[in-house]
């Protein structure tokens, strides 16, 4: 199961909507082994394409080094599909290489409906998992 707080969930959806009709992508980092997505990092889609995304390789190096320095790992790796459902494509599966990550897919095909789904992709095998959105604590 993916537990994610409302603020980060909303930022992922907002990024996907903003970059539509191109695919949007990014990472949410968290302490190694914690499974807690805490630090939202929007990435550039080097392909700037409605059908493909790729992290810019230099930006990825910088972000991965930062995570390393902070003892973090990519807890969530997200991207959007702009015309199809929020389900991993064959290409998504063949590239999936972080066995500990939750792969989040957001579809922006319908401007009214939110489609936010999460998967584990290990050894080319896809398993969908429930998403629990944790609402922010009200201020005391």
């Amino acid at each position, binding site marked *: 199961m993916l537990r994610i707080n409302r603020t980060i969930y909303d930022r992922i959806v907002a990024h996907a909507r903003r970059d539509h009709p191109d*695919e949007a*992508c990014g*990472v949410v980092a968290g302490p190694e082994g914690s499974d807690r997505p805490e630090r939202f990092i929007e*990435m550039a889609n080097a*392909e700037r*394409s*409605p*059908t*493909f*995304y*790729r*992290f810019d*390789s*230099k930006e*990825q*190096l910088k972000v*991965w*080094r930062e995570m390393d320095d902070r003892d973090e*790992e990519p807890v969530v*790796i997200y*991207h959007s*599909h*702009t*015309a*199809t459902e929020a389900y*991993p*494509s*064959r*290409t*998504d599966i*063949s*590239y*999936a*290489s*972080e*066995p*500990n990550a939750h792969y989040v897919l957001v579809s922006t095909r319908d401007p009214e409906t939110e489609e936010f789904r999460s998967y584990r992709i290990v050894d080319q095998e896809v398993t969908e998992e429930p998403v629990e959105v944790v609402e922010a604590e009200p201020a005391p």
Partner: protein
Amino acid sequence: MATEVRIPTILRNLTGDAKAVEGEGSSLGELITDLDKRHPGLQERLVEDGKLRRFINVYLNDEDVRFLGGMDAPVADGDTVTILPAVAGGMR
């Protein structure tokens, strides 16, 4: 002549869970051949038909080796090589 090579999570099963290993060679190709002797199987995960696999990013210090000559990129003592899985995908 040793070059530090940083290994991503997905390949650490080949390095006994080590995050970084050392290898020798004057080009990236030679370095990878040497690494494969120490950690068998690594070369196959990185290279296909003599070229870097497209799923893999390799950096020499701060630069993507695709811009430095790929497998021919010169490697010197004290350099750091970082391997990361490319993050990519798409609708199709």
